[in-house]
């Protein structure tokens, strides 16, 4: 009996280790990020870092103001959300409720394929097709703008939003639909008053995951937004995002330099933002359920 109990304990231990390891890895990454990032604040104050309007990391003396970068990320993400959320929810509704037979299958496959396009390819299309189009349409000095980034990223967020929303809609019990129709609701009334509400928590999760993907996206953004570190005044101006800054400058920095620490500090800001997005999504889900 003894050896069996021992084996049992061993297996339990192994499963526990597997379960805990993902949390441990996240914690270790966070600690590493904090340690490297906070080293910056020995030379630059938190206020000057978060509120600074100028990002000149290699000048003498260097200026590490990330305000333009934070706002750049926010503008691009907001633009992408405005474009992709209504479109995504609408097409999920269409796929789940209206489309039948082969149309439904073709649409589902098509949207899954959209998720399979590498971001660098979308960036390439953005720079060669979208950017000249935006320049001509809005008569801008350059087509490399926040809007170009937003449209490119909207394509990337769409598959996430559509497929998760569609799952949530399909999970709504059949009885809800039948009850709504039996009470004399039209199909549209049934959809927007019953289905969208019943699937609300799933839709919020879909939107949050979509936004999470957008704010962390790097390659396509770096290619199409122009990367000018100015405080953006509209979607039609070039912007520089936090992710593009880290990607473009990380290769150059010498380990242990101020610039290196500054890039980690940007990493902390990004981490905090995505953490907040997740917590908000969680709170929202909780409220919906009770």
């Amino acid at each position, binding site marked *: 009996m003894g050896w069996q109990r021992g084996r049992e304990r061993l297996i339990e231990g192994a499963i526990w280790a597997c379960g805990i390891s993902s949390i441990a890895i996240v914690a270790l990454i966070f600690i590493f990020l904090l340690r490297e990032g906070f080293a910056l604040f020995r030379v630059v104050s938190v206020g000057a870092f978060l509120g600074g309007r100028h990002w000149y990391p290699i000048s003498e003396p260097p200026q590490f103001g990330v305000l333009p970068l934070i706002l750049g990320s926010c503008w691009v993400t907001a633009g992408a959300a405005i474009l992709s959320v209504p479109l995504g929810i609408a097409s999920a509704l269409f796929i789940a409720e209206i489309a039948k037979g082969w149309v439904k299958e073709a649409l589902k496959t098509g949207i899954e394929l959209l998720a399979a396009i590498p971001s660098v390819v979308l960036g390439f299309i953005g720079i060669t097709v979208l950017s000249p189009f935006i320049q001509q349409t809005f008569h801008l*000095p*350059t087509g490399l703008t926040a809007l170009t980034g937003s449209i490119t990223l909207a394509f990337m967020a769409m598959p996430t939003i559509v497929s998760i929303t569609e799952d949530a809609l399909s999970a709504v019990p059949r009885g809800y639909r039948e009850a709504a129709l039996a009470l004399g609701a039209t199909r549209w009334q049934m959809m927007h008053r019953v289905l969208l509400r019943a699937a609300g928590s799933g839709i919020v999760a879909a939107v949050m995951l979509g936004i999470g993907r957008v704010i962390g996206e790097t390659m396509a953004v770096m290619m199409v937004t*122009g*990367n000018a570190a100015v405080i953006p005044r509209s979607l039609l101006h070039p912007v520089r995002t936090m992710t593009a800054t880290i990607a473009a400058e990380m290769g150059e920095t*010498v380990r242990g330099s101020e610039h290196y620490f500054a890039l980690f500090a940007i990493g902390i800001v990004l981490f905090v933002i995505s953490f907040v997005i997740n917590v908000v999504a969680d709170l929202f889900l909780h409220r919906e359920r009770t």
Partner: protein
Amino acid sequence: MVALALGLVAAFAQAGATEELRGSLQIKGSDTMVNLCQAWAEAFMARHPKVTVAITGGGSGTGIAALIGGTCALASSSRKITEKERAAYPAPPQEWTVALDGLAVVVHPKNPVRQLTLQQLADLFTGKTRNWKALGGSDAAVVLLSREVNSGTHVYFKEHVFGASKDGGPKEFAPEALLLPSSQAIADEVAANPAAIGYYGMGYLNPKNVAVGVAKAAGEPSVTPSEEAVRSGRYPISRPLFLYSRNTPQGLAKAFIEFVMSADGQRIVKQIDFVPVQ
């Protein structure tokens, strides 16, 4: 006897030639020099079939950081190594000047502005001059194109063009400047945008971009970038290109540098539209 001796000598010579270089060599760094290094690598590999030379771009700073980190044998750089970087080395790095390069300042062919002084260039890129009208062009906002900060070209331009301007104004690129990830991206954007101005190594000059003449000061003749103008030093924005090694190079790295500095290596420099050292 004589025939035998000759045969032996020939055999030895053969053995000497076949007991040749093998292995692989990593060269990382300057985007400006990627095409040049690639051409050297191809010619070098044609001579030594058992050798592979891998070239990666990413910017001069990237190459030097990789050299410090020990992930490449040679770093190509379009700027001199900084004191900070030098201090990070475990051993004193060795430096070779392998070619010269002129930085071409380019505009769209439709832009009527054909010559600028260093001061005017500095005013443009620091954001003081914001409209082409001030320089005799059409009424259009200037679109500044620059390389990312990890580029040696970016650093060189900043030091030599802004450094040359007389006033004590801000010596920084205007924050509005678009930072593009490669010289080719600048060439493409200039070709597509009549209001754009950018700069890159003269190896990237192409028929869709026009290089403006640059004068040291108002009243002095403006010079367009050419091999002769760069070598004689008449062209104001020209610079040396370097290869760095971690310490005294051995084996492959040594052979590669010897090849680069040879007449054949320098002929390749000319073919790629840079300026040979000798």
